[in-house]
């Protein structure tokens, strides 16, 4: 058992403890310095009580296991891990900004701000899921921001790493999490579904948009159970400024059955970034709280539910719902190529039936000077391209919610495609490549640049070469 307790001025493994910054239920957080590390740092020590301190210790062990394995801007960098035999601790970089608690205190926020925060959190969450980690305790207190606004998640004491033993799996008889944000399946003891984080994200967006918690502030476990049948008050009833599409996004993230939610944070993000194309269902249009009868019916259906269909493995869950971006060239001379591209997308949808397809066309704008908005015949170029994209995609036979259309404007088509892919967490780009011309070989083609620089897989479609390729 630990021999040393933390105090200001304590020296351990070269670190010197500064003032106490925070005393939480399970741990204390201290400012700390080290001659070898210029970076501002904090040291977290679990509160070891003399009695039964099981939960504290296991949560801390989970953090010690998971945090050193995480990388990237959305998690604090781990500097050192302390030995349990002397004093268990975790030294991480100190994130300058405060938690989002204060921001949430100012909710409801104006809709554009809600969308901006939601998108940033969703993007960071997807980056975390890609590292095989489900947070399982997302709430405003556990989200910080760096000086530049980057979202940082903290407190991984309840998290689950897909490739590590889950020390918490058998540990407690009661569900773990924070009551206002905990997902129904998490309440039913599931700890392996990333869609639980999507639910918590939904609850936070609800809060930002309405200033209220979707399920109130339950204090007892029994009250948490009610979210299996009781639906939150429609956000638009609380704040009429919320558009239907945003209510659709929020309530879809808060669906009771994880199978009906967004299947990944990236898919939720995608809808936030394409509001016009969110398919609005009854969820988005709902204006009234459930009647007693409706509530009774759902209670009767849900009261005996002990669990939902298990999720596929975490990597499979992320791969299962990929975003497929198709860059379509609509010029008349590449019609054959566009047809071939369509065939390739169709084939890909057979093996990935849950994929979402983002159809993109780029209008190459002039670097300088005023661009033409209408073509010679007087048609609006942007609109006509959108119509062209829709016509092209009609052959895919996808429902509205699974396909989106974007016309991008950029002097450099390669840059436009790459930016769109990065911004939307695209998993796979499909695009056509025109034939081989001397100029193309000399200047480099759009497709070769996309292949070289894309943050994801790229498939380049070509028309079969004729025996004697002569360039037009």
């Amino acid at each position, binding site marked *: 058992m630990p021999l040393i307790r933390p105090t200001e001025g304590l020296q351990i493994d070269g670190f010197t403890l500064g003032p106490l910054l925070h005393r939480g239920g399970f741990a204390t957080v201290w400012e700390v310095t080290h001659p070898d590390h210029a970076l501002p740092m904090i040291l977290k020590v679990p509160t070891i009580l003399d009695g039964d301190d*099981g939960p504290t210790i296991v949560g801390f062990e989970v953090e010690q296991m998971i945090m*050193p394995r995480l990388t990237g801007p959305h998690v604090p960098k781990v500097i050192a891990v302390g*030995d*349990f035999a002397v004093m268990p601790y975790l030294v991480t970089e100190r994130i300058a900004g405060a938690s989002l608690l204060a921001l949430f205190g100012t909710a409801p926020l104006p809709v554009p701000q809600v969308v901006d925060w939601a998108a940033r959190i969703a993007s960071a969450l997807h980056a975390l899921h890609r590292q095989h980690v489900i947070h399982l305790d997302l709430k405003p207190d556990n989200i910080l921001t760096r000086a530049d606004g980057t979202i940082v998640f903290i407190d991984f004491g309840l998290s689950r790493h897909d490739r590590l*033993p*889950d020390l918490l799996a058998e540990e407690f008889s009661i569900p773990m999490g924070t009551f206002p944000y905990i997902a129904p399946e998490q309440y039913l003891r599931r700890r392996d579904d990333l869609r639980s984080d999507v639910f918590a994200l939904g609850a936070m967006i609800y809060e930002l948009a309405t200033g209220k918690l979707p399920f109130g502030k339950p204090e007892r476990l029994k009250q948490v159970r009610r979210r299996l049948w009781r639906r939150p008050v429609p956000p638009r009833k609380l704040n009429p400024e919320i558009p239907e599409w945003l209510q659709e996004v929020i309530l879809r993230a808060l669906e009771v059955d994880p199978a009906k939610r967004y299947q990944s944070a990236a898919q939720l993000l995608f809808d936030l970034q394409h509001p016009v194309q969110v398919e609005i269902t009854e969820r988005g249009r709902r204006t009234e709280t459930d009647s007693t009868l409706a509530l009774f019916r759902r209670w009767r259906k849900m009261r005996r539910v002990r669990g939902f269909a298990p999720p596929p493995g975490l990597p499979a869950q992320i791969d299962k719902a990929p975003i497929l971006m198709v860059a379509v060239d609509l010029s008349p001379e590449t019609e054959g190529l566009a047809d071939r591209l369509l065939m390739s997308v169709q084939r890909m949808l057979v093996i990935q039936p849950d994929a979402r397809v983002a159809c993109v066309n780029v209008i190459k704008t002039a670097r300088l000077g005023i661009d033409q908005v209408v073509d010679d015949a007087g048609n609006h170029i942007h609109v006509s391209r959108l119509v062209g994209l829709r016509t092209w995609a009609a052959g895919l036979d996808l429902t509205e919610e699974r396909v989106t259309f974007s016309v991008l404007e950029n002097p450099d088509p390669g840059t436009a495609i790459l930016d769109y892919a990065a911004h939307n967490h695209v998993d796979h780009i499909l695009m056509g490549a025109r034939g081989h011309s001397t100029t193309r070989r000399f200047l480099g083609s759009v497709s070769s640049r996309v292949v070289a620089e894309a943050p994801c897989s790229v498939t380049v479609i070509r028309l079969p070469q004729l025996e004697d390729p002569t360039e037009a």
Partner: protein
Amino acid sequence: MRLALMTDIHANREALEAVLSDAGRRDIDKFAILGDLVGYGPDPEWCVSRVQALVGAGAVCVQGNHDAAVSDPSVSLNGVARKALDWTRQRLDAAQTSFLAALPLTQTLGDVLLVHASANDPAGWIYVTSASRAMPSFRVCDARLIFCGHVHRPQLLTCDARGDVRDHNVPMGAPIPLLRSRRWLAVLGAVGQPRDGSPAAGYAVLDTATNDLTFRRVSYDVATTARKLRAAGLPEPLAERLLAGK
């Protein structure tokens, strides 16, 4: 130090070769063999001499129930195992038989204890298949890490500071940090006769510098081993079991 841990080779030459070749590419400093070199499989003499060579080069090895049964008829075995062992005895020479008979039941390497079945009753050949079966192993010794075999299915258990023993999921192929806040017992999957639904040979690598353990699976030519089993006239269920990994 990087220690390759292997158990339950069961005279399966193809599986042992595949594991050694995989380990050969992973900077292994030392080998540990947790018993049951023979029994069930068609290549006992080759496997014993290969392990003898490893031991000659610094490997540690403990005795399993099948190894003990070669010269001790009182060790109880089921019908199929008994038949295979009667066949095995005739294949081994005197030096190999005495090598197996002389193997120790446990070995210690620093804070690591190696045993074929259980630490609490090494010669009782108990199957550590649950937290309650693992608890006595933690109680009888103070080793931080206990490695065993015998079950043919990988398993990972821990004993925390309060003495509570828990059973955990076993992630394959990724390093597992063996936190010093608790003690760990890993049941390794079998090299030569896996029973967890995958026919691939199992072993594990312990890195004492980074303090992590990686469970590994290596595919090998199961069909050849099954053919040899049948050609030797060994009981058919042994071949079927290898092909199915059950």
